[in-house]
């Protein structure tokens, strides 16, 4: 596969390490009342869709950016590629 890196352009997927569902960005608040349940769901309950999937890829053999790649798991078509940092900020993460 070829991943169109937002900074570096098209790169072979061999340069990347795959992590999984981009929902891993949404790490729960440790002080929430039901933090243990939230962390459980965060860690163990993932969707495994046949179709569009937002997932995390690490450009380990490259610039070390974490990317959020929206990929169709059936066709392997890649729809968007974003810097995970931008996605995380957009989802309200900060420090």
């Amino acid at each position, binding site marked *: 596969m070829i991943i169109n890196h937002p900074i570096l352009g098209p790169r072979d997927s061999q340069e990347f390490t795959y992590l999984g569902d981009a929902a891993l960005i949404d790490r729960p608040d440790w002080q929430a009342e039901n933090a243990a349940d939230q962390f459980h769901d965060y860690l163990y309950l993932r969707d495994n869709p046949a179709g569009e999937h937002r997932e995390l890829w690490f450009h380990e053999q490259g610039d*070390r950016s974490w990317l959020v790649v929206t990929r169709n798991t*059936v066709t392997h078509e890649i729809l968007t590629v974003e810097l995970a940092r931008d996605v995380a*900020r957009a989802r309200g993460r900060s420090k």
Partner: protein
Amino acid sequence: MTDAILNAGTVAFQADGSTGARKGVQVNRLDGGLIKGSKALTFTFDGKRYKGFEGDTLASALLANGVRLMGRSFKYHRPRGVLTSGSEEPNALVELRSGGRQEPNTRATTAELYDGLEANSQNRWPSLKHDFMAVNDRFSNFLTAGFYYKTFMWPAAFWEKIYEPIIRKAAGLGSISFEDDPDAYDKGFLHCDLLVIGSGPSGLMAALTAGRAGAQVIIADEDFLLGGRLNAETFGINDLTGSAWVEQVQAELAALPNVRVMPRTSIIGAFDHGIYGAVERVADHVLAPEAGKPRQILWRIYSKRALLAAGATERPIAFENNDRPGVMLAGAVRAYANRWAVTPDQSVAVFTNNDDGHRTAADLIAKGVKVTAVIDTRPDAPKVDGAELFAGAQVIDTQGRLGLETVRLRLANGATRDVPCGALAVSGGWNPNVHLTCHQRGRPAWREDIAAFVPAGTLPQNMSVAGAANGDFSTAAALRAGAEGAVAALSDLGIDAKAADLPAAEDAPVNVTPFWYVKEGKGRAWLDQQNDVTVKDVKLAHQENFRSVEHLKRYTTLGMATDQGKTSNMGGLAIMAELAGKQIPEVGTTMFRPPYTPVSFGVMAGRSVGEEFRPTRKTPSHKWAEEQGAEFVEVGQWLRAQWFPKAGETHWRQSVDREVLQTRNSVGICDVTTLGKIDVQGKDAAAFLNKMYANAFAKLPVGKVRYGLMLREDGIAYDDGTAARFAEDHFVVTTTTANAVLVYRNMEFARQCLFPDMDVQLISTTEAWAQFAVAGPNARKLLQKVVDPEFDISNEGFPFMACGEITVAGGCRARLFRISFSGELAYEIAVPTRYGDALLRKLMEAGEEFGAVPYGTEALGVMRIEKGHAAGNELNGTTSALNLGMGRMVSKKKDCIGNTLSEREGMNREDALKLVGFKPVNAADPVPAGSHLMNADGEVSAATDQGYITSAAYSPVLGCAIGIGFLKRGDARLGEVIRAVNPLEGKEVQVEVVSAHFVDPEGERLRG
């Protein structure tokens, strides 16, 4: 590609002037062809010497020499000859070459002849003509479809000792030499606008059109000659012969710098996003690769557009005993005659259900070969000149020992007739080569008018198909489709191309009446000759309800092995459709998967073999350690010194014990560069590390080091190390050697995905710094001789867990850490990697007066076990901070990775495993690592398991074996005597539970 072969078409054999000389003992050699008759090549088959010509394949040369018998079938060991003239060949598989270069299961039809080629037949003993295992053929009733599943079942005890060895011995075709392959294989990457797969009329027109438009073009063909069927047919293009037109196009392509022509290159798979795999056979056609050249190259081709022009494969008709050597595909017989000037025999009959078969008869007659009959299943078959036609007739049986002698016909009027012939050219129609179109999600569709599957569904991204591969079987249609396909593909890319002028060519319609198998006869009619699958086997599969094509394939093995059923699948599924009362498209095809043709393991491995299998990382002290005669051990990719033997030491334990004792008594030095190092900088560096480590880091003072434990988000401990604070906004973190990459990856994940606004930057500096542990009571005295005098490293000035930036040896930049893995007064000193070797030599020189020793990973391990320090064996992916005795370190006052889930009930059980030490009750006993712990009395079972020993060593300090490990409620059981058991080996040792801190439990030495 050599010019000689490219030009073979025009040179032809006339150069040598004499038909007689050319023929020699090549009894079946004809006139003409694209071989170079002036150059005789000598080769051997099963030890016998033969002659052939440049441009021959092994198969064409053997046929020329009158050799029809080329192999034995897989299951029944039936004598077999060549069926085809290309990569679809199921029968003529041979072992090529010998010694380290021996290669089994290579197809004689694609093996290019060279002088000195050595080939041997396979799957026969003692010889091809007299094969002992041919007895299997007599027992064929027991070896039908599914025999694997029905036989060898009982008694169960027979499986391992009797059935399996017999099956293993009988299975497989060729053999390997077990010698190392002396040749190199490479991998490479190519990029293009348009990849053209196949160089027949479509492919050449596409390449020409795209090449002239200035696009970056790659045209690849598995053959060593470009041209595809144009080399095998007699019809011309414009006023040229097909092969002469090919040469003309090839000359133009060669002159275009933007076109890369790749003969001998098989496209083996269509992968995601326009990426194709290709194998180029660089040196399979010569005796040995030229110096410095690889035998083969595995290419990864990145294409913007691809045009599949892979042609079509002829399919046979099944009838009784249709597997005798001499029964061949009609298109192959024609190719041998026209391209290689060879006939399989001097008298040939033709059996066909379509007009194309008649071309074989006409071409052979034109070459002076006697055609004894043309048998056409169609009552309305077209007329034939020069041979007797049997319209509406079928071949119902064949005779001949080790080769065809006669065929028996059932005539239209019901009579039988025996026709003598040494070869039978069979045509059941042509199947477009749709394989690559299906490598993603394409599923072919049935086209009634040509009685064949054509590409359909979702093709691989940006692939289009032209010519026979798309069901356009006439030359004119193929030429047009190639040119138009290239224009369309380039137009997608914004390149304006003009279709090359279409030359005049034949445009015959396809005229075929589907005919899959002859129903008459009780004997076996072969579908898949490679796997010995017959029409009967398909019927049996149907009867036993294995009716889906995928079941049919696996139950009967139809279409498996090296040819992947290129000539047999279609017949099998047509018969299944008939039996199931379905239409062929309802039955469908099995999945086509890469590779298109077999690929050698060598080219898959490329250069990654032996020592080059993965990178070897050497420590900065490697050279010095080699000079000392160190034994090395692989630790991940690293080579580390394991111990340093001294003269007179005959056992590794002597060396290791000495290294441990000398370190504990005076001073020892160890290269610890392999530990991961991560430089953490930024205003939020401390806050960031506070998130990474389970224990608190925010308040670590500048100039201090702290031990840190990292958890996974599920609360399991996964790495430990130290973080040294050199400035408010600057830390240096160490990780274990094994997890250096993972910890860095996880830290980047946290930095970018979880805490994107933290002001923190990370760099992996593992390779940037050489680091040595200097440990033992004399460590400070030794270092004081090396560290520049303005730096105070006294116990007061530089206490336990201090760190600082210093200089050594008169100004060399260095970092000093007062940390101890050995439990001794110890330091770790780091210098830029390029000074590592010099620093070590200086340290050893300075240490001479103390008898300083270098120590390796074994002594390091012994000392850490003596101190009860956890390492990889203890951080084994199942243990928590609580198990490790560090439960209280996990801060509950902050957020860090893993702390929330580490509080789960199941991880905090009252009877949790705790890290403790073990000593044998009988001091002479070993403490075997991996042993399970059981109470002093009672049964030994999983239910009574109390824990396990993770690490063990002989402690030269204590004079006995010791171990550490996890024991239920271990911290409350000190002094108890329990059993360490190894039920697999029937061993049991009594051990006493002790503190894991065997040496200096109060930690006085490291603070001294």
